[in-house]
Structure formats: structure tokens, C-alpha cells
């Protein structure tokens, strides 16, 4: 039953996911927008809101090449509400904020998009000149001077603690990458990222990045755009898809720092998500957890109360529990490790697809009705509870 004052995912679209795509950032953004519009059965005169994360970043165009303004202009949208910003809890908070805007009557149909162009931008420095800065600014001044330049190093500190204090092994951590690889092989849009099966032996012998992470534990720069259209409960007669309700959202942070807290922001966000809903972890049919680095999904399992804190690596049960035929299928499209660094939006896209039953070859059994999608790590955390109810 559609609830008037609720917000629903009614259209989803994704561009080709590539590595060093020749097509322009606006080209792939429009590919994803048009796919989502066709999916929902909407036209641009029905759209009155646009949202993105983190908005166009002039000094860092590969990371975020397209802003809300360009989409409003290109699509001829008469916007009543829009937002694009980075100072929100995490990537998926753009979707959470769009849902809030709809619930409050500020918009009826909102295009939410995230375009990434990191691989292409790196390969075309004349068009996308890398920024050379004389100084490290802001929070990175506390890590970069120690050559802790990548988030891989910052996340590794939490993952190493799980190994030393709670007994996680590399074989257990490997199950996140192996699961991503298996699922990506059944995702036609992951061909540019995942080409062949990964074995545990190959994983164990792979080049180390920063312990415990090897090459397969880190996502890879990709070029892609992902779009979700959100609609108001009293506008569902205008769309042709099975609506998926944004049943709850959360994004909490207690220390805005990668290295000061004992636990990442996900551990505050998880309980806050459940505080807003009658659903419980046992109702969840699939989880789509941010996996920019392989430890994140293990931490999200703990943070959201699927298992005890410190026990996520045991809970996945050698990968059986998180497989597509397991109790709690994880990252069924391959996540970012297997299907490219879509930067958060891919998890909401796949959750909606699975809840509709439209995931084709990789559709999980059991008619799933509830899913959790998350994004972020460290001080960034956003969680969406999505339901077909």
C-alpha cells in the first residue's frame, strides 16, 4: 500500500561502467538519467528535484565532474528543490535528503545521481589536470605527512585491530573479495572490472597494499554514472515500476576524524537506523554494504547489529552466509570491489533491483522484501533501509 507522505525509489539507471571511458562525464550521466526515466516511465516535465553527492568539484573533476546545475539545465528541469554537497554524512545521504524533501512536500519526483570519472580523468591529464598542492590541508595534515596518503592506510588501522584483538584471519577477510568476484561475474555491467574468477590462492599471493589489505581488498577507479529516481507516495500512479520505499535512513558521526575514535561512524549510524523503524535485522533479505576496502562490509555487519561487535569476520562463515544462496546475501552485483567504484550509489541501485525481483541471473531467492544499503567508512556513514511493502 502506497503511503502518501512516504518516499519511494521508482526508477533506476546506470551507464556503462568502464575504465578509461571515452564518453564524456555528461554523456554517461545522461545515459544513466535516461535509463532511469525510461524505467520509471517519467518525462522531464514531471521531475521537480535533483540531488547529488558531493556536487561538482572543480579541483577534482575525476572524483565528481557533474553538478546539479548542469543536470537542471541539460534536462530542462523546473526544479522546486535541489541539493549537491559533500558536507553530509556520506554518499547515500543525498538519497536520504531527497526522501526527506519529498516527505515534506518540497518535490514529487527527484533525480538522484552520482557520476564518477576517476579512471578516465587520470588517463587524460591535459583535459583533467591533476591538482598539485604545495601543502596538505584540513584533516589530511594529520595523516599525509606520514605517507598515510590513501584511505587504505586509515582503514587498515581498524582492520588490523580486528585481526590482532578479535582474531580475524586473512582467509576470513578474503571472503569479501571472493564473494564480490563471484557476484560480479554474473553482472553484465561489471565486465570492465571483473573478467575472471578469483581464487583464494591468488588472493593470498597478491601484492600487499598496506596490511592486511592486498590489491583485491581495494576498489578500483572506474567511470560510471548511477541514478535513482525518488517519488512521492501520492505520485506513484505516474510511474510504472514496483515502488521501493525508503523506510528509514541514518547518518551519524560522533568524532569527525579517521584516527581519533575507536570505532568508525558506522557504529553510531547502525543503531540510529533501527531506532526509526519497526523492522529488525532478521527481516532483511539482502545487504549492499560499501566496500571501497574489504573490511568495511564486515564492520557494517557489526554496526547494524547483524552480529556482535568484533565478530563480523566469523559471522560471514567462510563466505557461505553472505553468498547469493546464503542467509544474508551481500553485494550481489559485485560491490565496488567487483563492479567498480561507483561511490555508494551502486549499493542502493542493486538493493532496489533485488527487491523488485529484477536482478536476472543474479537474483537472490526467497522474494526479498527488505534491504539495507550503506555507504562510507571512517567518519563517513550513511545507511538506507529499503522495503517493498
Amino acid at each position, binding site marked *: 500500500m502506497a503511503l502518501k507522505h512516504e518516499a519511494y525509489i521508482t526508477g533506476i539507471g546506470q551507464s556503462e561502467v568502464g575504465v578509461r571511458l571515452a564518453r564524456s562525464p555528461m554523456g554517461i550521466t545522461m545515459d544513466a538519467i535516461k535509463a532511469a526515466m525510461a524505467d520509471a516511465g517519467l518525462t522531464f516535465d514531471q521531475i521537480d528535484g535533483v540531488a547529488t553527492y558531493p556536487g561538482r568539484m572543480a579541483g577534482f573533476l575525476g572524483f565528481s565532474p557533474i553538478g546539479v546545475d548542469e543536470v537542471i539545465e541539460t534536462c530542462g528541469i523546473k526544479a522546486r528543490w535541489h541539493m549537491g554537497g559533500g558536507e553530509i554524512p556520506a554518499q547515500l545521504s543525498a538519497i536520504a535528503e531527497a526522501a526527506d524533501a519529498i516527505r515534506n512536500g518540497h518535490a514529487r519526483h527527484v533525480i538522484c545521481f552520482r557520476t564518477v570519472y576517476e579512471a578516465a580523468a587520470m588517463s587524460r591529464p591535459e583535459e583533467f589536470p591533476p591538482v598539485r598542492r*604545495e*601543502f*596538505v*590541508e584540513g*584533516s*589530511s*595534515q*594529520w*595523516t*599525509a*605527512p*606520514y*605517507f*598515510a*596518503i*590513501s584511505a*587504505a*592506510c*586509515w582503514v*587498515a*588501522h*581498524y*582492520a*588490523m*585491530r580486528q585481526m*590482532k*584483538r578479535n582474531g580475524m584471519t586473512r582467509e576470513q577477510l578474503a571472503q569479501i573479495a571472493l564473494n564480490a568476484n563471484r557476484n560480479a561475474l554474473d553482472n553484465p555491467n561489471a565486465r570492465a572490472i571483473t573478467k575472471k574468477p578469483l581464487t583464494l590462492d591468488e588472493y593470498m599471493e597478491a*601484492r*600487499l*597494499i*598496506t*596490511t*592486511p589489505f592486498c590489491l583485491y581488498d581495494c576498489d578500483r577507479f572506474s567511470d560510471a554514472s548511477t541514478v535513482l529516481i525518488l517519488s512521492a507516495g501520492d505520485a506513484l500512479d505516474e510511474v510504472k515500476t514496483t515502488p521501493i520505499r525508503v523506510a528509514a535512513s541514518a547518518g551519524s558521526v560522533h568524532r569527525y*576524524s*579517521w*584516527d*581519533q575514535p575507536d570505532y568508525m561512524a558506522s557504529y553510531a549510524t547502525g543503531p540510529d537506523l533501527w531506532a526509526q523503524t519497526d523492522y529488525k535485522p532478521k527481516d532483511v533479505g539482502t545487504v549492499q554494504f560499501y566496500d571501497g576496502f574489504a573490511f568495511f562490509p564486515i564492520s557494517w555487519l557489526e554496526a547494524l547489529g547483524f552480529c556482535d561487535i568484533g565478530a563480523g569476520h566469523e559471522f560471514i562463515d567462510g563466505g557461505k552466509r553472505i553468498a547469493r544462496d546464503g542467509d544474508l546475501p551481500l553485494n550481489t552485483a559485485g560491490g565496488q570491489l567487483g563492479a567498480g567504484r561507483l561511490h555508494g550509489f551502486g549499493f542502493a541501485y542493486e538493493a532496489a533491483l533485488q527487491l523488485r525481483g529484477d536482478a536476472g541471473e543474479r537474483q537472490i531467492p526467497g522474494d526479498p522484501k527488505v534491504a539495507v544499503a550503506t555507504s562510507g567508512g571512517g567518519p563517513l556513514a550513511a545507511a538506507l533501509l529499503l522495503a517493498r511493502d
Partner: protein
Amino acid sequence: MTETKAAPPPPKRPRPRLDAINRPFWTGGAEGKLYITHCGDCGEWTHPPREFCRHCQSENVAPEAVPGTGVIDTLTVNHQPWMPGLPVPFVIARVKLDGAPGVILTTNVVGSPVDEVDFDDRVRVTFEEQDGIWFPLFEKEA
């Protein structure tokens, strides 16, 4: 005889831009001191340094020297050369400081082979100067 390309020189440490708030932390090493922001009202410590105490919001904060010892909270052995010529592997650790409860520094632990550095090891600050910045690094206590 094979031609070999000269290895690039080790890169300099990325350096912060000094300002009124962070200067004591990044230059205290000139006098052999590790300064952390301390509140004159509530006695708590604020790191990274800020204009206000993050515990009681007092402006009565000042850099105060801490003993410069601590314990390794967690660490990673970094193998990826993020910059050309960066010697690897090396240890990136989080150190919990003695005398400043709740403050953790991300740092490098130097002076020991990477496989001889572990969680809970006691460490002591050692400064490495470069272009007017004294980077607080740590080595294992003897």
C-alpha cells in the same frame, strides 16, 4: 653492462601549512617538545588542535608539552609506494599518548624492522625536521 635508470630520490614528507592553531604541534620539535592542546578550565585535551576546547568549549586553551611517550594502539605495514621513490615497507601506527588521555597520533614508527613493531609496544617521540616542520615520529622504547 645493462643500463639502469637512476632511482628517484626519496620524496619529502607532505607538509602542512602552518597557522596559529597548528604551529605549536608542528614546530615544538625544535625545542624537543611534543605539544598537545590542553584546556586551562576543564583540564581535558583536544586533538587535532582547535581554538576551543572540544570538551567544555572554553577558549582558555594552550599548547602543553606531553611526555612524548605512548603505546601503539594499532598499526599497518604499508607496502605501496604512494609517491615515486618512497621506500617501502614502513609502519604507519596510531599511538595513544601518555599524559593526554583520549589523544591519538597517526605517525610512523621508525628505527626497527617492520616485523618487530607490534600492538601495545611502548614508543617514544623522535623528531624529523624538514623545511621548518618537526614531524613527530616514534621509535620503540629500549
